[in-house]
């Protein structure tokens, strides 16, 4: 079974806890973290993403697009870093809702980001459409990578 962690329950603070900070705008609540260690976890991550997108109100088509983008970045973790996490969260910036997806790994990092973002480029067993494809279908896409330390991909899709 995949290891799943949910964020701590913030609804019942103990007396010793400081008063809860006001929610930051655009912050995730009810984040779901799926650890990515096997190919089966890719399926779990995209299914969780689809479920979350459905509760936020995305159409079936957009749910599928989001699931596909999650599948691609989760696969990148398996292909290049062996293990990592995909964290899914609901976004609400006051005016609009959406879904955030953060894929993190402590893998080797990406030596040439421009090359990795190019359509059709791949050093592993794929079509090389993963990162550029995911970027194309999401509203926001941010990739940070440090050689020898790991890669983080942050993506957001807003409900229109």
């Amino acid at each position: 079974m995949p290891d799943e962690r949910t964020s701590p329950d913030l609804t019942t603070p103990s007396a010793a806890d400081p008063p809860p900070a006001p929610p930051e705008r655009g912050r995730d609540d009810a984040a779901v973290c799926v650890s990515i260690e096997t190919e089966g976890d890719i399926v779990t991550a995209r299914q969780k993403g689809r479920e979350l997108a459905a509760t936020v109100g995305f159409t079936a088509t957009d749910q599928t697009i989001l699931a596909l983008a999650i599948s691609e970045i989760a696969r990148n973790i398996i292909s290049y870093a062996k293990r990592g996490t995909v964290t899914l969260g609901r976004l609400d910036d006051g005016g609009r809702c959406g879904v955030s997806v953060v894929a993190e790994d402590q893998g080797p990092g990406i030596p040439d980001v421009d090359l990795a973002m190019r359509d059709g480029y791949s050093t592993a067993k794929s079509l090389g459409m993963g990162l550029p494809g995911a970027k194309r279908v999401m509203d926001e896409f941010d990739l940070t990578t440090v050689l020898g330390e790991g890669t983080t991909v942050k993506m957001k899709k807003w409900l229109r």
Partner: protein
Amino acid sequence: MAVPLLKQGDVLIASIQAALTDQDLVQLREDIADRVGRFRSRGVVIDVTSLDVLDSFATRTLRSIAYTAKLRGANTVVVGIQPDVAFAMVQLGLALEGIATALDLEEGLAHLDALATEGRHRAR
């Protein structure tokens, strides 16, 4: 979970159930290459109706299954790609280049039939 392979006449039918892991897809490629020889199949139908997503790995593996089967003398047709799945693939830029597709199992079998008839005519 292995994909069941059914033999119907000279056609092999692979009906993919629910979400497949990468390993299942790779296994399917090996199974099809093996059964095409054992059953002397001329055609292969891969039914992906129940797949919720066709990502780059699945796309690539379907292509390699079709090429492998072709080298073994069988034509492959992929059937049942759902509308949302098709749309998502287009958005992401994924393609099943060089692979025959059909709406459903019935259309897929008709396509293979037409190819076989065409082949017989050419052989005369």
